[in-house]
């Protein structure tokens, strides 16, 4: 009975989303304030019923209700309780419900803040969000309801959650990722509302900015967690694979990064308006495209959901209606939006334009590489693969160029900067960073590519701090009061930029200064490797709640001193009959020790992979810094004040 309540709640949510998608828009065209007013309560009603159905599904998981097909496919009575909860989004249907739940959450948040928007714009924004909800709710109800029952033959136990997903990283990774993905729907809704109402001025950009920064921060966290999870869970020590599904989350991030920057220009200077609107549409479209790629079965990936062509058609139709519709609207209406302000070649506008162009180029590059195998096949040319070697080759130089300019932008002033001042600062920083990086590369005998990359990193750090120092040392007040006066927005930017550099250094060093080896080890044997001594103590048999495992014990010492005990495992999950490799690792600020068990060889020997990964934590540390930067700038005081009137 209870699962039917969940299903019924979904139907009600669909009904209210339909109302939300239609009524306020009618109100807008008829200039009827009563109809406009309905947007807010309708949003809350829709969100409430989505929440109810989510809770019902959660209840079904917690109570092991295997009569619900989705539960029986993704859970098991022996599954630990926290994985039962995360199993809610372990499959296609439930993760879609999470998607919709988060969308409702964002819609409700906008509804709560609606008083900061002009009376006719707010309801239109909510209505656009309603259209998106309508699309996904109907998709769920018509093709992938999580409440389908297995009657009358109820399985005695479930098939268990995919062991890859039984992990702390996977409890939080999808919700964070979706918070980001779906959060861009708010920027999208603002953009569409602006096109509909023609109300596109700098206050529009100011409303949109905190939402965008916030979603961007979540997406950054989601991607960082995903990368971290892949690193320790997939068992082969990579942190980014350029897998289509990873790219699907990376493209909205790149476009979203561009959007965050172009919104700043549009707010402060009123230029690039139509471009910013297009970017907002583009960013959310890429989120939708990602959803399509993951769920339609057109791609092969480690992370893709089970394919189903009817679902594919439905999402594609949804994609065409939402993206096609908004691009059509854009084509008709964007011509009316034109920036009036002007700027000089050395103004910050120009640097941010360059930033946007480079980020767009990067996004399109990833898009091209991800879709090329599909296009290739459609044209009947056979099957090809586009993987990490391709992306590393084409992506890295452009990304490095972007980071070079990233440091210059903040130094420049709006409208125009004195070229000589800019040049002097840059030249000095360039020289210093090249020399510094050269010294570091020489001491650690790194190659010329590392030298170049390190130079860029140092350059970015130097200029970022120089800018901060200039700002706090100018004027008569002391440094500390001035430093405290700088807006949160500024510190957010600083933190995010520095985070970018930290990630860059991590990426560089993990690829240049890591060691790996595959060995045959028997208990009692040891190996010296990258300054460490790995001693294979033996293998023991371990029994987990829903698996059995061979657990290796490898004690690591450095110059005779004990460092850590690593316990890599080879697990066998009995319900799903899958073998899983669990790496043994010791995390450190400058290096990770990483050991994973391969297969059992003759006798009691095992094939063992050992890695010493230099600075790999920096990659995620940088990600976390970027996320904090995004949060900080979303919390800037300027956004919390009420917007009065339309000051174009």
């Amino acid at each position, binding site marked *: 009975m209870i699962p039917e309540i969940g299903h019924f709640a979904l139907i009600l949510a669909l009904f209210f989303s339909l109302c939300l998608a239609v009524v306020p828009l009618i109100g807008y065209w008829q200039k009827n304030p009563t109809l406009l007013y309905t947007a807010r309560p309708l949003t809350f009603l829709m969100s409430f019923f989505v929440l109810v159905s989510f809770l019902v599904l959660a209840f079904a998981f917690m109570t092991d209700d295997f009569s619900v097909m989705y539960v029986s496919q993704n859970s098991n009575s022996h599954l630990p309780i926290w994985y039962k909860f995360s199993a809610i989004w372990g499959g296609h249907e439930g993760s879609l419900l999470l998607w919709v739940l988060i969308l409702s959450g964002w819609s409700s948040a906008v509804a709560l803040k609606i008083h900061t928007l002009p009376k006719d714009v707010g309801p239109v924004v909510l209505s656009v969000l309603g259209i998106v909800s309508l699309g996904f709710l109907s998709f769920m109800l018509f093709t992938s309801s999580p409440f389908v029952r297995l009657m009358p033959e109820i399985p005695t136990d479930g098939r268990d959650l995919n062991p890859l997903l039984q992990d702390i990283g996977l409890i939080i990774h999808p919700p964070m990722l979706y918070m980001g993905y779906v959060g861009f729907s708010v920027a999208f809704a603002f953009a569409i509302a602006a096109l509909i109402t023609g109300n596109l001025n700098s206050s529009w950009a100011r409303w949109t900015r905190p939402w965008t920064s916030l979603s961007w921060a979540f997406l950054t966290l989601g991607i960082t967690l995903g990368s971290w999870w892949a690193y320790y869970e997939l068992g082969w020590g990579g942190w980014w694979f350029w897998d289509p599904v990873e790219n699907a989350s990376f493209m909205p991030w790149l476009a979203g990064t561009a959007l965050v920057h172009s919104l700043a220009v549009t707010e402060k200077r009123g230029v690039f308006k139509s471009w910013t609107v297009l970017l907002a549409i583009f960013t959310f479209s890429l989120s939708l495209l990602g959803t399509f790629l993951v769920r339609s079965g057109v791609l092969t990936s480690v992370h893709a959901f089970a394919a189903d062509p009817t679902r594919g058609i439905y999402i594609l139709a949804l994609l065409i209606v939402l993206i096609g519709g908004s691009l059509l609207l854009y084509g008709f209406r964007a011509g009316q939006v034109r920036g009036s302000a002007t700027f000089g070649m050395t103004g910050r506008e120009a640097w941010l334009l360059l930033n946007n162009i480079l980020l767009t180029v990067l996004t399109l590059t990833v898009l091209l590489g991800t879709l090329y195998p599909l296009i290739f096949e459609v044209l009947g040319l056979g*099957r090809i693969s586009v993987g990490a070697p391709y992306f590393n080759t084409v992506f890295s130089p452009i990304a490095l160029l972007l980071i070079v300019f990233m440091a210059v932008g903040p130094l420049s002033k709006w409208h125009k900067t004195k070229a000589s001042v800019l040049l002097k600062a840059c030249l000095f920083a360039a020289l210093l960073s090249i020399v510094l990086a050269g010294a570091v590369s020489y001491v650690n005998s790194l190659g010329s590519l590392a030298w170049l990359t390190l130079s860029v990193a140092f350059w970015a750090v130097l200029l970022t701090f120089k800018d901060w120092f200039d700002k706090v040392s100018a004027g008569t007040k002391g440094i500390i009061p001035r430093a405290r006066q700088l807006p949160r927005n500024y510190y957010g930017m600083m933190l995010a930029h520095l985070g970018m550099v930290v990630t860059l250094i991590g990426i560089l060093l993990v690829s240049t200064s890591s060691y790996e080896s595959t060995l045959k080890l028997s208990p009692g044997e040891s190996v010296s490797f990258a300054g460490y001594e790995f001693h294979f103590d033996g293998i023991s048999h371990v029994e987990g709640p829903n698996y059995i495992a061979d657990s290796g014990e490898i004690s690591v010492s450095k110059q005779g001193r004990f460092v850590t005990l690593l316990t890599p495992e080879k697990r066998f999950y009995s319900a799903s009959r899958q073998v899983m490799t669990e790496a043994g690792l010791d995390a450190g600020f400058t290096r990770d020790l990483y050991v994973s068990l391969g297969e059992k060889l003759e006798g009691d020997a095992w094939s063992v992979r050992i890695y010493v990964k230099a600075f790999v934590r920096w990659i995620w540390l940088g990600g976390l810094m970027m996320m904090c930067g995004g949060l900080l700038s979303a919390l800037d005081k300027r956004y919390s004040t009420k917007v009065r009137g339309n000051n174009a």
Partner: protein
Amino acid sequence: MRKWVLFLPLIVFIGLGIVLYKQLGANPEYMPSALIGKPVPDFTLVTLQADKVLDQSSLPKSAYLLNFWATWCPTCEEEHAYLNQLANQGVPIVGIDYKDDQKKAQQWLSIKSNPYQLVLMDELGKFGVDMGVTGAPETFIVNTKGIIVYRYQGAMDDVVWQKIKGYLQ
């Protein structure tokens, strides 16, 4: 001119939509063999039953199926009955016992009956690599000229066979 530019994103998107539509329902696992149109590569392999060393010349002169199988592969067990059926219909099948144990393979054939005209052992999987095999079972169709014309990955059954039997000539 400027008006037209604003519709550019829409046009690109429509193109993309068409590509995605065409790709729906296609099997992303499907991989055409790189050996289509080429003769069966050279080999010297030992027969399963008689420990005789054979090469190219021992292959049938008519069109035939070349089936990779192994006792460790559950899908092979699934398709075995159908292969027997095909053999009874007079379809010549050459079996390659892929990365397997000779004793087990002999036992398997004596219990389940032998659909193969000839069974060769590819213990190390070298011939498998030369044929571009990625696992078992895989079935190649070789025509009368000794050219490989089709490759099927997975269990052979009636549905599949009806679709591909036209290649056998």
